[in-house]
């Protein structure tokens, strides 16, 4: 009897990565010989927690750029507003975290509807400029001394009182698992969205908006949906970021933070969802290591690395991997077809 070959399921990579990430803190503790709540294990839990938060932020941008084709230069406004609102409501209003979460989402919906309704009337670079203008407006507001008692103006809002049970300093391991669960949950939600009929319309809009309209879709509505969903996710990542840093400052609303989203998406692979998550990890790790080796000049080296990535991986890490995978599969399929044809014709045993 033929023994069945052990086959991994097609989508084994995701659950395997999740298992590795769940075991990571304990594996680090074993490797370093330090307790899981101290030293290097604790440091790397923090590093990965930041990656998870940035991964959500990058995914939110990918939904906009990668799936709907909307180039925004103002994405940081959602991230920063989420962080500021979290800080203000926790510190000044004393709201419980779940209420803060709902308020952040509601505010993000309103903010993205406002931005979307006004900016989606134009396309391409004009849209990018309008979103940049909005982001600058929020950036200037965050620095304004008129609201200093709430926002801390240029100094930012410090000592945000995160709930004791998820304090990133005292409860690092718990924070690690919460941010991991947050990242996985958002990934599953976004994947569901992009695989839904509405997600397919978003892809159609990215490819050719006129064509999508000719089929009968009011593309404005779908673009507004993408902006709103993306804004809410970015605001939630801002919330988590405020809880991690225990502060919110004007830098979070700056163009640099939007550029980071763009970099993470391009490095990982535009329109791949997993790619921007990987891009977030690459950006975070490269930033850490390059800073350790080159000090304050690290962005210069990072620039060179980024150019090399764009040159050699033009579709990003995951995008290029998928392209090459598809190319290899079609090459092998062609070879198999030829071999089968050759075997059917008699192959080596053919007698003329």
């Amino acid at each position, binding site marked *: 009897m033929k023994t069945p070959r052990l086959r991994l399921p097609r989508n084994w990579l995701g659950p395997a990565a999740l298992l590795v990430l769940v075991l990571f803190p304990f594996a680090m503790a074993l490797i370093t010989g330090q307790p899981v709540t101290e030293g290097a294990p604790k440091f790397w839990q923090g590093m990965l927690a930041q990656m998870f938060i940035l991964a959500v932020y990058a995914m939110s941008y990918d939904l906009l750029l990668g799936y709907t084709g909307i180039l925004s230069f103002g994405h940081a406004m959602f991230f920063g507003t989420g962080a500021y609102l979290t800080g203000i409501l926790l510190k000044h209003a004393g709201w419980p975290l779940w209420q803060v979460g709902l308020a952040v989402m509601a505010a993000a919906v309103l903010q993205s509807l406002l931005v979307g309704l006004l900016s989606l009337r134009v396309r391409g670079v004009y849209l990018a400029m309008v979103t940049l203008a909005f982001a600058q407006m929020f950036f200037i507001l965050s620095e304004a001394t008129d609201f200093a008692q709430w926002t801390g103006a240029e100094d930012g809002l410090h000592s945000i009182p995160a709930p004791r049970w998820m304090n990133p300093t005292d409860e690092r391991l718990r924070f690690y698992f919460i941010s991991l669960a947050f990242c996985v949950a958002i990934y599953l939600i976004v994947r569901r969205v992009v695989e839904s009929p509405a997600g*397919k319309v978003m892809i159609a809009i990215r*490819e050719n908006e006129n*064509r999508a*309209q*000719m089929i*009968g879709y009011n593309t404005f509505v779908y673009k507004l949906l993408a902006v709103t969903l993306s804004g809410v996710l970015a605001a939630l990542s801002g919330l988590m970021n405020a809880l991690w840093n225990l502060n919110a400052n004007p830098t979070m609303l700056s163009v640099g933070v939007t550029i980071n989203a763009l970099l993470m998406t391009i490095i990982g692979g535009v*329109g791949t969802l997993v790619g921007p998550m990987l891009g977030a990890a690459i950006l975070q790790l490269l930033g850490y290591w390059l800073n350790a080796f080159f000090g304050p000049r690290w962005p210069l080296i990072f620039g060179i690395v980024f150019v090399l990535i764009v040159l050699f991986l033009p579709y990003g890490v995951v995008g290029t991997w998928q392209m090459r995978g598809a190319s290899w599969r079609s090459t092998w399929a062609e070879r198999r077809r030829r071999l089968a044809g050759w075997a059917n014709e008699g192959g080596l045993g053919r007698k003329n």
Partner: protein
Amino acid sequence: MTDLLRVENIHTFIGQFHILEGVSLSVPAGSITALLGRNGAGKTTTLRSIIGLLSPRAGRIMLDGREIQGRPAYDIAALGIGYVPEHRAVFRDLTVEENLKIAERRKGDLDRRSDLIFDLFPDLKRFIRLPGGQLSGGQQQMLSIARVLVADNRLLLIDEPSEGLAPVIVENIIEALRRLSDHTTVLLVEQNFRMAAQLADRYYILDDGQSVQSGQMAELARDGALVAKYLGAG
């Protein structure tokens, strides 16, 4: 036959350029009407004006007696006009199935029309899971036509379906369009006069953005001088 579509003296601009300078035509229900003319005569602009991608500055476009000019493209499409643009307009990153599914106006449209579609274009069934961008040129054209068949469209605007295709594929497309005319009304833009002559009942000739001649296709096919004058084909 009553007219399903009437275009009355439309003037369309692209930027500052006055492209259509008074185009009029009518498409009887259940017919195939060919819109003929040389390159740059305004055929594609006429179709884009009808579907709402361009807004005529003057004139009227009526579908079943109802004015539709100036309405957005998605609104006009929802009234039952399917547009197959030139250059095989498939969504390259969506699979064949997704390309068809996205054209549903009501849930289950594709299931209801799948027999007709896959009967007309059996290749699409074979490559149902393949991304649109990986199909050959002919298959992409078939997919592009099949997409407008998914929903219950009353009028199809088909722009240059034979463009850049091998003769054998063109024959397939002709056969498919001929069978389609049993189900719907077609306004066909085609440079390939032989193809148009095989398919259409009536014709309109555009020249420099104006409709200059119209009539029964059978008569045009016999009038070599007229064909040579406006279409450069004999």
